[in-house]
């Protein structure tokens, strides 16, 4: 009896793991199977034609690129500095606790609420309109807690002996941070950057009302232009329009491009981290 229970439990655990892995495949396989044809170079580098029924996704790729880069420019410096404060200064305690709680809280807020906030704050209050700038700022806010948390972890993994050595040589706190802590943690910080880019590139809800447009035949000219974005384009292709038989194949290709982008970013982050773990001598 005991043995049956034992074996049964083990089998159950194996089954859950197999189901978990196969659930990933349910999503990956159809996209890889249906999405890769005709990607290069036409699809990537041509404009959409005839509504959304023909052509490529060049403006969406450019739009996602701009949104990702801009929001990272806004959020990354703030994120790193906040992480430095939390990991290296950590005083006064009540402020650190308050800050930590608000960062955790921010990271739990649904992305659609960031979208609404972006709409009322950037689009309406600051009259930035539905634009690249409003969207990037909204995405920056969304990614801030993620960046802070992972950079903080990176900084905390720097051995305290390194810092003590710097102090004993007469370095000030600030010098220790920018000459020791940040350089030592740099590969990890880079990983955080890559992961946050991957996360931002795939977000849809925050840009729906702040930046994105479904169909554009032009590239964004300035910060105040509306932009196309790959994730929003996928959403539009399967929910709007009149000819699904033409739009679904385009959506498959767009999903393939987005998935590939996100997977490459994540795999490179995983590889950097694994390599680091092997090289590390402390």
């Amino acid at each position, binding site marked *: 009896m005991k043995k049956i229970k*034992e074996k049964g*439990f*083990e089998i*159950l*655990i194996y*089954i*859950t*793991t197999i189901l*978990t*892995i196969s*659930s*990933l495949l349910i*999503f990956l396989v159809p*996209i890889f199977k249906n999405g890769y044809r005709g990607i290069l170079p036409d699809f990537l580098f041509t404009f959409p034609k005839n509504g959304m029924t023909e052509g490529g996704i060049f403006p969406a790729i450019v739009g996602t690129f701009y949104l990702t880069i801009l929001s990272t420019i806004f959020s990354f410096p*703030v994120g790193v*500095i*906040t992480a*430095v*404060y*939390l990991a290296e*200064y950590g005083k006064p305690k009540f402020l650190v606790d308050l*800050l930590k709680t608000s960062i*955790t*809280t*921010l*990271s*739990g*807020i*649904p*992305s*659609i*609420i*960031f*979208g*609404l*906030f972006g709409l*009322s*704050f950037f689009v309406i209050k600051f009259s930035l309109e539905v634009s690249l700038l409003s969207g990037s700022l909204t995405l920056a*806010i969304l990614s*801030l807690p993620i960046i802070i948390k992972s950079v903080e972890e990176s900084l905390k993994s720097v051995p305290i002996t390194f810092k003590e050595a710097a102090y004993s040589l007469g370095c*000030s*706190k*600030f010098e220790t941070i920018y000459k020791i802590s940040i350089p030592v943690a740099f590969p990890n910080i880079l990983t955080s950057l890559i992961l946050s880019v991957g*996360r931002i*590139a*795939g977000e849809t*809800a925050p840009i*729906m*009302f702040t930046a994105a447009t479904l169909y554009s035949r032009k590239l964004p000219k300035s910060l105040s232009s509306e932009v196309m974005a790959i994730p929003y384009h*996928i*959403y539009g292709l*399967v929910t709007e329009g009149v000819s699904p038989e033409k739009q679904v194949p385009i959506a*498959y290709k767009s999903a393939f491009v*987005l*998935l590939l982008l996100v*997977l490459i*970013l*994540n*795999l490179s982050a*995983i590889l950097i981290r694994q390599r680091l773990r092997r090289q590390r001598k402390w």
Partner: protein
Amino acid sequence: MEKRKIRDGFATFLIHSISLISLVILALIVYDIFSKGYIAFKEVGFTNFIFGRKYYPTMDPPSFGIFNFIVSSIFVTLGSILVGLPLGVGSAIFLSEYANLKTKEILKPFIEILSSIPSVIFGFIGIVFIGPFIRRFFNIPTGLNLFTASFILGIVIIPIISSLTEDALSTVPSTLKEASYALGGTKFDTITRVVIPYTKGALISALLLGIGRSIGETMIVLMVAGGAMNFPNSIFSPVRPLTSTIAAEMGETAVGTTHFYVLYGIALVLLFLTLILTLISNRFIKNLKRE
């Protein structure tokens, strides 16, 4: 020397003040959603808003009862937990108690990749692949419904639950496990009587974070839940959770109308729910760290 001191002092000051930006942002978000959402509560009335069954924003006079959306959100979330909790906890137990190092190094990236897939991709496959499959399989009028949404959301929260559970399992001191084995406990006994009770707090917090993610997920439910505003009376009813109501209607709403504020009111309900979930789960994680 003097110059160095000034520079350091300035840098320290800058670091302190920039760090406060997150705090300010959170305050602004809460204030913004609260002040606009409050208008909805005031104009519609608390009871009519939360418990009203009728939602006709464009009729004259309009009605704005969001009860069906709240119920839909709760049902979809519960359904996702039924899928995500066993798979997440099961795979975490496998990774930390059964798998050898090599298997672990191969499997863990898989789960990490699952967590990095954008939600619009889940929604897309839900519409073109899983939805049609479920419609044929159960022979029902539409494959985009409560069941499909719960199923996909369940998969989405697996990595959250799995990684938090695994972290927690790894904190169990090996001496405790060894003691259990020494007393003749089997692996099953050790996991169910030592490991799981020891990590109970973390498991609850993983569950709460999973719930928070499910309740707040927008694109997936917008795309695959079906969008019907009725009260869900079967697991195959098309439904419309809180998040997809906001996403579906905000684009067509004129700024400053009651309808506009009602969408912020819905966001306020969501914000309230997720804040509570995060704060409680944070408490559990903190307790764990202290132990």
